[in-house]
């Protein structure tokens, strides 16, 4: 396989891999998050559930896209294609970056769930008084 063909194939495989990481993270968190959202927001929980899906997948895509083959225009296409090792390293960086961005997104959602739980708890404590 020539380096140019490897670049084309690996780029799209890496994109799919990053997307797969995002989808996997979403699927793991989906069920418990839906239960929390339903408990806190009731019938208006759909927006929260969709936001979780969109943000997790976007984080993965963002991580993938944040790696530049040409170092933002500093390296020519010919130099990029010349070195197979450089191409492999960038594929790994794409997956690494996708993983890191998913972790940031998961932490952000942990904070959102924390806020949701605080709201839910205050509602629970107010309900008996009413």
């Amino acid at each position, binding site marked *: 396989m020539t380096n140019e063909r490897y670049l084309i194939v690996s780029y799209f495989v890496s994109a799919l891999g990053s997307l797969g*990481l995002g989808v996997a*993270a979403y699927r*793991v*968190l989906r*069920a*418990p*998050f839906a*239960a*929390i959202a339903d*408990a806190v927001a009731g019938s208006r929980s759909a927006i929260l559930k969709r936001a979780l899906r969109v943000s997790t997948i976007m984080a993965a895509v963002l991580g993938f896209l944040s790696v530049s083959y040409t170092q933002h225009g500093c390296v020519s296409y010919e130099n990029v294609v010349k070195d197979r090792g450089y191409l492999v*390293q960038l594929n*790994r*960086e794409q*997956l*690494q*970056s996708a*993983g*890191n961005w*998913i*972790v940031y997104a*998961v*932490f952000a*959602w*942990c*904070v959102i*769930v*924390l806020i949701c*739980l*605080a709201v*839910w*708890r*205050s509602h*629970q*404590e107010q309900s008996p008084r009413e």
Partner: protein
Amino acid sequence: MSPHSITFLASFIVALVVAGLVDRLLRPSLRGLLEEITGLPAATDFYLRAFAIVVIFVALAAILGTGHGDIKEGAHFMEYVWSVAGSMQDVFQNLLIVLLVYVTLITVLMAALRREH
């Protein structure tokens, strides 16, 4: 199989084992704490799953980000060990940062939910 691939595979497996061990060691007490403070089983489940995702993704990201360019054909056994140990340094460093962030998060969760308990 090239020395680079051997080192990468060994580091990958060790990182997975380390991430699994961290998750396994902390999960029972974390579950007990979360069940006590959240009062919502789904929330306990969410935070436990988030913890597992974070630990595994961070360990794998650290391995993917580590280059093993220092190892050459015909390298000695200890050179392989040093190369794997070098990548483990990144794994442990990232795991430590993630654990500190997670502990901070759980502390805030405890403070927010236990105040009026």
